């Protein structure tokens, strides 16, 4: 008998006479106080509390103008595969392990946890290796809750998704917080709204 079948056999025997224990149903994360912030506001607050930076733009043109100025401080960039042309900085394209700046497009974001949803299809190294990381995300792609985001993602899962919720951090050195070990020490979430009202909206209102 294979290890697999032996293990499964032991597990089945172990649970054969256990009383039934039903699945408790979908997780409904209730909170101690009501929160009337919009998803964009909630996402932004958590992201900045975590040490991330937030920029907001009415449209892609405004974002592109900002990006051009931002990129002035860098001499190379690695850009995600799904980033639209308008949001690619005019910098030499450098391989991800050497680039000082990474620019990517998030598949979505999550207000409840302050997380950007990064899809492997955009390029994992680009999302992870540069010390500064700018992530564009559309306001209308900000989900209210993590469970909503997962529900939405399951139909089209890539090889990996990363939920990035701030700059890389560690307190392992004498309990003192440091950044940039090993992921980006700076991360900017650049939120794109196509209309001023979009900045107040969100995928699930």
């Amino acid at each position, binding site marked *: 008998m294979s290890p*697999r079948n032996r293990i499964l056999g032991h597990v089945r025997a172990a649970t054969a006479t256990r009383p039934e224990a039903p699945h408790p149903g979908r997780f409904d994360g209730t909170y101690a106080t009501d929160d009337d912030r919009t998803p964009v506001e909630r996402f932004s607050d958590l992201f900045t509390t975590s040490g991330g930076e937030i920029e907001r733009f009415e449209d892609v043109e405004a974002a592109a103008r900002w990006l051009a100025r931002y990129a002035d401080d860098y001499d190379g960039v690695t850009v995600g595969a799904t980033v639209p042309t308008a949001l690619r900085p005019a910098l030499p394209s450098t391989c991800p392990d050497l680039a000082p700046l990474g620019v990517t497009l998030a598949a979505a974001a999550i207000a409840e946890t302050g997380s950007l949803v990064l899809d492997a299809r955009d390029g994992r190294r680009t999302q*992870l290796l540069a010390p500064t990381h700018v992530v564009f995300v559309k306001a209308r792609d900000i989900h209210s809750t993590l469970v909503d985001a997962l529900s939405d993602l399951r139909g089209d899962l890539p*090889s990996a998704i990363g939920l990035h919720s701030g700059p890389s951090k560690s307190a392992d050195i004498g309990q003192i917080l440091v950044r940039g070990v090993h992921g980006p020490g700076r991360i900017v979430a650049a939120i794109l709204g196509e209309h001023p009202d979009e900045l107040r909206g969100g995928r699930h209102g």
Partner: protein
Amino acid sequence: MSEAFRPAHYGTNAARIIRDEPTMRTAVTEATRSKDERRQAAWAEIDADAWRDWARDLKTHVLTHLADYLEEAEDRLIENGVHVHWAETAEDACRTVTRIADGRGVRRVVKAKSMLTEEVGLNAHLEAGGLEVRETDLGEFIIQLLDEPPSHIVGPSLHRSLDDCRRLFHERFGTPPDATPETLAATARRVLRDDFLRADMGVSGANFLAADTGTLALIENEGNIRISTSVPPVHVALVGIEKLVPTFEDLSGMIQLTARSATGQPIGNYTSLIQGPRRPGERDGPEEVHVVLVDNGRSRLLADDHAWETLRCVRCGSCLNICPVYRQTGGHAYGWAYSGPIGAILAPGLLGLEESMPLPYASSLCGACAEVCPVRIPIPELLVYWRERAAEEGLAPRTETAAMKAWATLAEHPGAFGAAAEAIRVLPRGKAGRALPVLRGWVEERAAPEPSGERFLDTWNRREDR
């Protein structure tokens, strides 16, 4: 790691640490208090009772139907292009990883933090086979350089101060003796960046495995797990069979509750949701992903009608952070991978009761751990359960067993009990006191108790007789 690093030596190791390493207690106390405060603040934001009930019920459901979920997960993983292996023992798990490494000519391995790999002794096994293994989590990196075991489930190096780290980095990497934490971190980043890029294989654990999509969920703050599981061409994940959750959506509750409990954050800074190897059209990602499903005593624990509740554990460390016994020594005294309250109830299941003695007794049963466990494991009850098993299996000290029988007999005979209680009044103090085993333990560290001049019951009965 020495021969002394075994649960059996808890008493002497604890005493030695307390006596010879006074900074250990201070460092551990400060670190765990601040972690517990963060957990408290994070729980105060949510309806913690509801979240904990949900998580307890979810894990209870999974464990009750574990075989079905394991089979479902295996089907999904294979569909996703993942190689699935099953390891019954620690030895099997290590050999499986070696086999995978040999098949790919692997020489250099980067490790993401995984308590399961500590449990099975993977690093030592791989290094004995000639592989170079580098821990990439900063805390694990530090203790690897110091050749020490982890002292906490979530913060393995929390017993080491900033000065300790400064000395270590100065010796190994030539940083200035008064380097700032930022300089030390930047050094670690630089050293490990090389290792990530040159590695042939990344090894991780997993916090959860969602059965209906075959998704591995991993929680961290540094990014080393994301990098270890993305950059090397091969990724091997060791996953305890109890890590299953039924659905992709179920990950939401478990990930958030674990993060709030472990570090006080709404979510870990990086959460990896891994389905499998890189797909056509993706720029990068591992070519090969392997999942090793590890039993190593879990199915035996599952079969125990009391102790199976232990398997709900999400390895958040909350119980360690509140435990006044753990705070005295940190994790090294416990003599194996898992310390604190959870270590004491996992050990009898995974190591066997005899090998785990006396850990089930390394607790005053204060109950603080049960109050903070996110999945409501009744830890004090399980400690008493293992003590009962020890007594039944003849592992309890013989003198203690005999004394308890005698005490019960006395208690059933109030007159004799009273006489014995009276005899205590004339109990020997000082040198003679040290001769009695129970008393010796007391008088080593405390003044002997003073009995009242007359027992209350004697006084009462005397007055009644008038």
